[in-house]
């Protein structure tokens, strides 16, 4: 058995460890698994929670796509649309984001947002394209989260967490109010009402309303609400009044409010208010309202005369503002000076708040103030409020002249306010009285007077003479025209021209004079002629004046008068030219020249040379005189020129280029040329005064 060789041990390489045999690739599935699980966990943990919302119907809600929104941000999606066990409601199962779930407590509201068109506008327009969505609303307080909710059919008017105050309004009927109708304050929408419903007792309508903050601070217990629905037409003494608030309130109705008096208490959530028919009723209510009574101030007034027309409820006014009302009328028997007489005691209820006192002042304080007022002349008196009805009111007036009085604080039942005489002209100013007075008016006489006046007017209008007046006027105008067109008038310029022609002849002769032999007495004559011309020239300013006056008249007067004035002016010119001086100028000159000629003849005959020296001396002096005369000649021509210029201006304003005009212009041009001739003569004389003597 020894030779049995032991079997050779089988030597194998050590089997590699398990992890050494493991491929690296195994990391991949491990990684994939880890990532997949991670993604799955992530997804699951971020998944929202399911909540159930029940609706009466689910119009447009689609499982899987309809969104749940909060403040317009999607916070979830509808996953399932099903029914409740008895099929009475639709149960919508929605998955809502985890982070908003804690806020979904009992105040959470859900409703389906659909496009809505109403008088107030269009809402939910975005849902037309995207389909409906479910809007949720809840406040920002975490509460015990709920998993099932009851959805609302209509969007709630008040969102949880919205600042404002919820109030309750009571109205007699709700036929003018619709859900969502605005609540206005001074025309601004500050809130809205919810669906009106019948009050539990069935005798009215209760409407929940919401006043948005901060406007809810405007509401106090003294606030009054009134209906502004539709429109109202009132016919009164002030004319026709149409009251209409807004189009929305016309269709959906609306409620307005105002705090009419100061001193109300702050309101609490759910405070109850009444809706009055209109603003007037709301204001009235302040005085009928028993709730405001404790603040009231009670006073009495004693009136002596008749108080017919004064009734309980009549206004008490102070400076035209209603501050209270008459609460009672009592007849009171008084004994004055041993005689009994009946006086009427009128009880007044005055609202101190209407006087602006508010809460700050106690009733005693108000009374003290009133006493102060009375000491300064405050009195009560009766006044007419309406002529038609004869109704009376009590007016508190401040008199400037008064007898001192005080409030009788001891009087019963209330302190008595001193009264004064009413300023009523006619206590019985009833409608009847007014109509009687209207009847008494002399309407018929007035009418007959009017008729006779009309008749007179008609007669006057039909009068023959009056009807002929236009004809006479026409004739007058015709005559005036004939006058202007008459040969005489038109001949005036011709005459003027003739006169100028004469003038020119004179100057021609004057010019010729230098060609003639000159002698001493001729010089004297020349001097006197020059003096005459000077005189004539002195008259020319008068012409100018007249022409100017003529121009003024032409501007202001009628054509006829203008023509007259022109004629007169021309006549004056004519007369001037035809004056004795001017007309005698040529004969005088002629005579002078004849004398010169005669003198020369004598000289020639006599040959008295010895006289020449003395004659020359005389001639010397004569030449000086001529020089003087000649010096005045430029001034003369100057004046003539001015005359012509002014006459031209006058005729320019006269305007028409009639023959008269043209001729007048020609006349004046002649005058001008005459003046030029004179100027030429003057210059010649100036240049060579001796030429007139020696003929060279």
């Amino acid at each position, binding site marked *: 058995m020894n030779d049995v060789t032991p079997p050779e041990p089988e030597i194998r390489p050590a089997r590699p460890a398990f992890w050494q045999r493991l*491929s690296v*690739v195994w990391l991949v599935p491990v990684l994939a*698994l880890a990532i997949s699980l991670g*993604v799955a966990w992530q997804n699951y943990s971020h998944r929202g929670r399911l909540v159930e919302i029940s609706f009466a119907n689910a119009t447009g809600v689609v499982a899987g*796509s309809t969104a749940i929104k909060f403040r317009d941000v999607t916070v979830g999606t509808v996953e399932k649309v099903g029914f409740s066990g008895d099929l009475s409601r639709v149960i919508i199962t929605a998955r809502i984001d985890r982070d908003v779930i804690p806020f979904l407590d009992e105040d959470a509201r859900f409703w389906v947002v659909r496009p809505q068109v109403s008088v107030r506008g269009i809402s939910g327009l975005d849902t037309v394209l995207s389909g409906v969505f479910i809007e949720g609303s809840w406040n920002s307080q975490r509460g015990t989260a709920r998993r099932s909710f009851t959805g609302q059919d209509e969007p709630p008017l008040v969102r949880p967490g919205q600042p404002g105050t919820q109030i309750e309004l009571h109205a007699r009927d709700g036929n003018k109010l619709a859900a969502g109708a605005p609540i206005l304050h001074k025309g601004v929408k500050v809130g809205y009402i919810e669906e009106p419903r019948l009050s539990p007792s069935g005798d009215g309508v209760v409407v929940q309303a919401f006043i948005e903050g901060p406007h809810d601070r405007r509401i106090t217990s003294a606030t009054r609400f009134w209906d502004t629905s539709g429109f109202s037409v009132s016919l009164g003494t002030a004319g026709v009044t149409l009251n209409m608030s807004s189009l929305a309130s016309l269709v959906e109705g609306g409620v307005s409010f105002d705090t009419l008096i100061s001193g109300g208490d702050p309101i609490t959530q759910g405070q109850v208010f009444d809706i009055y028919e209109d603003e007037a009723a709301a204001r009235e209510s302040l005085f009928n309202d028993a709730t405001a009574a404790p603040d009231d101030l009670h006073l009495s007034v004693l009136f002596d005369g008749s108080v017919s027309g004064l009734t309980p409820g009549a206004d008490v006014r102070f400076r035209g503002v209603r501050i209270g009302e008459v609460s009672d009328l009592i007849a009171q028997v008084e004994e004055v000076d041993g005689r009994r007489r009946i006086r009427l005691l009128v009880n007044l209820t005055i609202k101190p708040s209407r006087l602006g006192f508010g809460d700050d002042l106690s009733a005693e304080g108000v009374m003290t103030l009133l006493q102060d007022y009375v000491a300064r002349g405050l009195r009560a008196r009766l006044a007419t409020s309406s002529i038609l009805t004869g109704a009376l009111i009590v007016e508190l007036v401040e008199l400037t002249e008064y007898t001192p009085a005080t409030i009788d604080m001891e009087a019963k039942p209330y302190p008595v306010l001193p009264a004064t005489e009413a300023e009523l002209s006619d206590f019985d100013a009833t409608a009847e009285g007014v109509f009687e007075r209207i009847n008494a008016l002399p309407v018929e006489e007035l009418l007959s007077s009017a008729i006779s006046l009309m008749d007179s007017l008609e007669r006057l209008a039909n009068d023959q003479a009056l009807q002929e007046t236009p004809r006479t006027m026409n004739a007058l105008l015709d005559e005036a025209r004939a006058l202007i067109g008459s040969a005489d008038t038109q001949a005036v310029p011709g005459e003027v021209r003739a006169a100028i022609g004469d003038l020119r002849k004179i100057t021609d002769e004057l010019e010729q004079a230098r060609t003639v032999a000159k002698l001493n007495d001729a010089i004297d004559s020349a001097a006197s002629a020059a003096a005459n011309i000077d005189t004539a020239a002195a008259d020319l300013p008068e012409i100018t004046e007249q022409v100017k006056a003529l121009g003024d008249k032409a501007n202001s007067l009628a054509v006829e008068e203008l023509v007259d004035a022109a004629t007169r002016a021309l006549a004056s010119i004519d007369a001037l030219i035809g004056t004795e001086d001017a007309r005698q100028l040529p004969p005088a000159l002629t005579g002078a020249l004849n004398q010169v000629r005669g003198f020369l003849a004598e000289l020639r005959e006599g040959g008295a040379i010895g006289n020449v020296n003395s004659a020359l001396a005389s001639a010397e002096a004569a030449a000086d005189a001529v020089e003087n005369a000649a010096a005045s000649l430029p001034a003369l021509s100057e004046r003539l020129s001015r005359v012509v210029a002014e006459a031209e201006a006058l005729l320019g304003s006269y305007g028409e280029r009639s023959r008269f005009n043209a001729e007048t212009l020609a006349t004046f041009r002649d005058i001008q040329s005459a003046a030029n001739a004179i100027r030429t003569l003057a210059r010649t004389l100036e240049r060579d005064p001796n030429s007139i003597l020696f003929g060279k």
Partner: protein
Amino acid sequence: MEIAGKPGPLTARAAGLVACRRCGRVHPGGAQICQRCGGPISSREIKSLQRVWAWLFAGMILYIPANIYPMLLTSTLVSKRESTIIGGVIDLAHHGSYGVALIVFVASVMIPIGKFIAISYLALSVQWPIRQHSHLRHRLYEVTDFIGRWSMIDVFVVAILSSLVQLDTVATINPGIAAVSFALSVAFTMLSAQSFDSRTIWDSDRPAE
């Protein structure tokens, strides 16, 4: 080691040869490095099966989210929807596009699942010899290897759609998580198929020495 006496085809291993898998050159058994291309040579890939199983598991794991999560995120002006692979197929079929639905279904569902099954079967058949014809199994392997890439159709569709349809608010298509995981799943199963050393199919005909 009689060669002719045994049924079945002659294998290289039985002939004492080893071929390079890259360039195909045949070397005598025991060669470590290919003389032509310099690549490593081994008669059988070590850890081949491990890699096959690892890639396969990775592909299968990723195939689950690929089907659960949405493949396409389609948001238009009015709606927003997510569609999974199967959901997309059903939608297409509902709209009457049966052909397209069939293509998507085959490419995205049948082929990946078929590959899982085929590769698992091949790997198991190597470990636990199954008396089945090696030729059939080899054919199965070749088909699996070839057809795997066609699963990418769905991924391409998503990639093209999401890059083309970007009209901001009007219409937008985005790939979902499923698109990524599906693409990875397909890639992993292809790697799994490639890791499989098809030569081991033939070993089961003849027990290894």
